[in-house]
């Protein structure tokens, strides 16, 4: 018979009456609280150590299955202060805890294999280390190869084989810019015989700021859980850092500056990271904003999982509840009470930094000052943990696995400590320059060698480095690749970022006042709720268009079409939506806005839109909503204006309506937003700039409600169903097929397809097979299906 415990157990986790004792969660905390000070680690008072189960049961201190014969239980029950345990001057163990230990003994003293109260065998250094480079053995002077050659030698591993040019160009282009190399670049690169061509390619890729930024944006958005939509935004409980991040990557902002601006933000642009996600209503103690702060910064920059320790002292590493709350208190506006497993402990947290060897926070200082002190400690020259954590992540991105694995468990022993420490201190010595380290890794022979399969079982202890690992294309890389092959990227994007370069004078010049319009019901108004109107305006450019952008907003909702194509929609009157439209402007243009007034009673309604067209002669023109726009009070059904018969509608003049709240919300942002939209870029939109859609989510783009630092390595069935049934994908590939057929003669088609998808020439058997399928005059459907089949092959979906 099992003992039935009273419901008053207050230990870390409540047990149900029927439950087996959970050693890690129910027993370890009790032993740690009352016994470990004298009987664990290096301590073995009275000759008793409980480091391991074998030591625990030695000398019948404990007898598994028999609590009444276990000496340590007797001692705990003993009332004589000279004999009792814990010793007389320590607090007594509560009865429910004693009962728990007895139950544990009676159930046989379950013990996780290899669990020990002893000190872990590996403790990573905190301070930076600058290992000496070994002498050159492999004929290369590259610092990483000198270290790795020595590693291979010491571990009796074979030297790695260099990778061929076409594999290299695909790998390095995808790794540094997220894109496939263009077929012409593959041809010229493979034909190039100069010895420095790989170095030159790496420099060329890293110098492409836009491509670099829009690829690495994905990595940083995941790491900093930033997104353009997601939980929390709806109630204003979350803000983006998108524009700050985008500009930081574009100008290759030093990483220590990035960390400082994220932790001690000077303004709202980079404040979203530390401010976390605030949900409406009450949340558990482990998810308050200060605790989120503690967890996020520990995970992202220190490679520490503080989530365990923010509920109770971690059972698996050295971090405690005090550590987690010490960091949280740096952020907290108010005194912060410690909670263990969501229950208040009565203690108040003191702002505290967890590696005091380089200094600490002044808990008496104000919040801003505390954050600034923390930012200083995180980027302190003697802080080796932050650089190690980020360079390990970069290595993981490029090589398919970190030197420390997993990436978020930096307390784990790396497979080569000198390599990690050398790269980390080199990173520091070079001004925390991210591109420097990316260049360092990609120029190494180690990176440029043949990939080796990654095994499913892949634990830190038995792992040996034998070369880079193949990586699956990310959702964004896959979508970008399809758009590249087909030339069919979308016209607008969601990220509130400026892709082009913006001249501050232009912002000034475009800072005009908005003018809003509505239908006749607005005079005198207010318009009825539920009213839906159609607004239109025709215009023609008077010169050759260089760039163009559009902005719009409405109270309450609108959809905007340019020449029948949906460009923008929105339902926030205080938000300006924007898109570049240079590619959509024709000789004759028509703007259509379907606008809707919502609410439960008649209320103010208005729509605003402005197009800026910049001409090749540097002049520009603005088309804005005003009373020259026409309005129809009936709106045809459906969402395809191409099918509407607009001439059948009754058109009247629109009415100017201007509500001060609209103007104050939008006018100050017009200059910047419109400049950004029309600056745009002639480069195709990238998937990283879009909100996640069903396909991207299926391909592994995470909901960025939590920090996610690694993407799934496998394809799932539902994804495959989606890829097989996806009509948009077929339509897209069809456009690509048409393009290829137009551009290449039949005999060159197979080669071109292979070069633009797999970045290599087809093997003879492939050439023969595919040519046989396509025949002498390839038709669009067959080329479309060939493109689909190639993009589904493992070789396409994996960066090898």
């Amino acid at each position, binding site marked *: 018979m099992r003992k039935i415990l009273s419901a008053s157990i207050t230990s870390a986790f409540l047990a149900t009456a029927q*439950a087996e004792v*959970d050693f890690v969660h129910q027993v370890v905390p009790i032993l740690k609280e009352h016994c470990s000070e004298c009987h664990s680690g290096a301590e073995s008072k009275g000759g008793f150590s409980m480091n391991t*189960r074998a030591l625990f049961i030695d000398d019948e201190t404990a007898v598994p299955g028999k609590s009444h014969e276990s000496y340590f239980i007797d001692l705990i029950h003993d009332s004589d202060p000279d004999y009792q345990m814990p010793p007389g001057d320590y607090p007594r163990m509560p009865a429910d805890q004693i009962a728990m230990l007895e139950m544990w003994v009676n159930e046989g003293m379950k013990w996780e*294999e290899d669990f020990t109260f002893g000190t872990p065998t590996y403790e990573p250094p905190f301070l930076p280390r600058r290992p000496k480079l070994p002498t050159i053995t492999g004929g290369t002077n590259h610092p990483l190869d000198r270290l790795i050659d020595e590693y291979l030698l010491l571990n009796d591993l074979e030297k790695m084989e260099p990778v061929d040019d076409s594999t290299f160009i695909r790998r390095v282009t995808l790794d540094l810019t997220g894109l496939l190399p263009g077929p012409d670049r593959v041809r010229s690169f493979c034909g190039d015989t100069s010895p420095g061509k790989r170095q030159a390619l790496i420099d060329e890729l890293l110098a492409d700021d836009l491509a670099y930024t829009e690829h690495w944006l994905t990595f940083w958005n995941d790491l900093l859980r930033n997104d353009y939509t997601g939980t929390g935004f709806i109630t204003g409980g979350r803000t983006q850092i998108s524009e700050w991040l985008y500009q930081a990557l574009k100008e290759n902002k030093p990483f220590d500056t990035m960390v400082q601006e994220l932790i001690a933000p000077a303004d709202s642009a980079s404040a979203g990271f530390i401010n976390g996600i605030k949900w409406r209503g009450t949340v558990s103690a482990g998810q308050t904003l200060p605790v989120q702060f503690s967890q996020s910064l520990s995970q992202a920059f220190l490679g520490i999982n503080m989530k365990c320790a923010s509920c109770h002292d971690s059972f698996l590493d050295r971090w405690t509840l005090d550590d987690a709350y010490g960091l949280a208190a740096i952020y907290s506006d108010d005194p912060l009470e410690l909670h263990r497993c969501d229950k208040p402990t009565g203690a108040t947290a003191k702002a505290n930094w967890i590696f005091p060897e380089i200094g600490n926070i002044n808990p008496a200082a104000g919040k801003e000052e505390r954050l600034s002190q923390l930012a200083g400690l995180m980027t302190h020259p003697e802080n080796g943990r932050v650089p190690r954590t980020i360079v390990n992540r970069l290595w993981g991105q490029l090589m398919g696995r970190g030197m420390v694995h*997993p990436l978020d468990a930096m307390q784990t022993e790396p497979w080569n400590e000198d390599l990690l420490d050398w790269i980390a201190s080199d990173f520091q010595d070079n001004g925390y320059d991210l591109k420097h380290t990316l260049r360092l890794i990609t120029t190494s022979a180690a990176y440029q060698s043949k990939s080796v399969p990654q095994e499913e079982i892949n634990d830190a202890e038995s792992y040996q480095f034998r070369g880079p690992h193949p990586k699956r294309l990310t959702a964004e890389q896959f979508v970008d690749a399809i758009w590249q092959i087909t030339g069919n990227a979308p016209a607008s994007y969601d990220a509130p970022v400026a892709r082009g370069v913006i001249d501050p004078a232009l912002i000034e010049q475009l800072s005009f006042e908005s003018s809003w319009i509505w239908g006749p019901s607005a005079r005198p108004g207010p318009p009825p709720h539920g009213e839906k109107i159609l607004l239109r305006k025709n215009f023609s450019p008077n010169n050759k268009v260089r760039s163009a952008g559009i902005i719009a907003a409405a109270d309450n909702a609108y959809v905007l079409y340019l020449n029948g194509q949906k460009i923008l929609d929105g339902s926030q009157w205080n938000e300006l939506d924007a898109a570049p439209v240079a590619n959509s402007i024709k000789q004759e243009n028509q703007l259509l806005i379907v606008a809707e007034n919502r609410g439960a009673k008649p209320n103010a309604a208005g729509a605003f839109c402005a197009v800026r067209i910049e001409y090749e002669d540097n002049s520009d023109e603005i088309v804005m909503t005003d009373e020259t726009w026409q309005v129809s009070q009936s709106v045809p059904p459906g969402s395809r204006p191409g099918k509407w018969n607009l001439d059948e509608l009754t058109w009247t003049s629109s009415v100017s309506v201007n509500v001060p709240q609209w103007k104050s919300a939008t006018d100050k942002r017009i200059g910047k937003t419109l400049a950004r939209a029309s600056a745009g870029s002639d480069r195709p939109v990238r998937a990283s700039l879009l909100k996640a859609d*069903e396909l991207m989510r299926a391909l592994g783009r995470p909901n960025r409600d939590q920090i996610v630092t690694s993407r799934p390595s496998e394809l799932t069935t539902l994804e495959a169903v989606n890829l097989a049934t996806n009509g948009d994908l077929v339509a897209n590939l069809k456009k690509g097929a048409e393009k290829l057929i137009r551009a290449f003669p039949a005999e060159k088609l197979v080669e071109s397809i292979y070069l633009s998808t797999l970045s290599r020439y087809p093997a003879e058997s492939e050439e023969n097979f595919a040519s046989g399928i396509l025949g002498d005059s390839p038709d669009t459907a067959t080329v479309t299906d060939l493109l*689909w089949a190639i993009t589904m092959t493992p070789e396409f979906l994996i960066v090898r």
Partner: protein
Amino acid sequence: MTLNIDPEAPDSIVRRDFLKKLSAASAAAWMSGSPQLVRGEGIARPEAKADACILLWMGGGMAAPETFDPKLYTPFKKGMKADSVLSTFPAIDTSVDNIKICAGMEKIAGVMDRGTLLRSVVQPDLGSILHSRHQYHWHTGYVPPQTVAAPHIGSWMAKVLGPNNEVMPSFINIGQRLEGVGEKEELKAFTTAGFFGSEYGPMNLPFPEEAASAVRPPESMTESRFSNRNKLFRQLVDRNPHRDFASDFQQESLMRSMENAYRLLSSKERDAFDIEREPKEVRKKYDTGRFGRGCLLARRLVENGARFVEVTTEYVPFLHWDTHANGHDTVDRLHKEIDEPVAQLILDLEERGILDRTLVIVASEFSRDAMMEGKPGSTANDQATHKVDQLTEMKHYGLHRHFTGGSSVMMFGGGVKKGHLYGATADERPLITVENPVTITDLHATIMSAMGISPKTEFTVEGRPFYVTKDGTGKPVTEIFA
């Protein structure tokens, strides 16, 4: 060192057996990142009472006093006092003597003798009430936010049990749009397999009448072109000179997924997605709207081996069950939308002999009341649109506040007692649970146990044990099982 577990011990639970494989150093690696490992495989599984589960979700807060738990009926009278309203529909008899439900649900009343009605389900007080937080809680067992992405209960079933028929997706979600509706991000946060990964995630079919297209060749592609395209794919893979670069498991997983997908898309089971294949007179019984058609689709999918199917009346802020105003008229419409399809689903499953092995649940995130927001003692702020003491217009009449103190859940089939009533709420305001309260955690334990999943089943994510019911504490309400 070995674990000291006596395999002969009665109902012994072999826990954390995966840890046996872990060395001390790699215990750290276990802390985060790496793929989740199955825990609790050795946990004694309760004997499954059902093979499939259909959740009929009344998104937005279904008022129990307007549906399954009628109170004093007070018809509308201009100027009536707001606090005099308990139910706006009279009670009607059901096929079970001691159970009455609200008028408008006559067909459901007719199948009452096939199921168990729980009238005592309670929700926690989360302060200010947000539908999507309670929906997250109901669908995952955990209150958001969480430090890891919690899996949907459908994903738990997909992960632990897999599909009944390996061709079919395990988890199918019908009727909820995830784009273009308010709070869509909050809906996506729980409509996911979370840390299990998308293999166990939902197949989303927001429009039941379009479900067939999700498993058909792309529009404009003939069947023969579709199958040729797949053949072409296989031939290219066979001819690929670079097949050795990726590890077998990675390459195989890609190929296996493509294979699984093609198998579904070329199977006879894919017809299950096409409700047009039902005889017209059957379709008519279900044709009350998207929800009704979703019920028909759910029946076809379960007949063909889906494990978990959710059908929702759809949550859209201020629409459907989210009756901040006009409660009576809205619920009157909703009765018409759900009554016949729900009853017909039960009858159809019964006729096919699979009701006993299919657990059908009708539930919502919380109930509603005319006066009380939250529950007694709650600090939730009042979110009613019309805050009036006297009802002067029809739109004032109905239950417009979110009530977390007592709601109803209806269960059919899957081993539950027939014609059984469990729990009760007060007859006077506050209409709180007065007998046998059931928490979400215990409700999940009940559902999972019926499906043959122990409430203590756990997986490890980032070094933390994550249980199918909150912290493994759920206790099934065993009294409701036959």
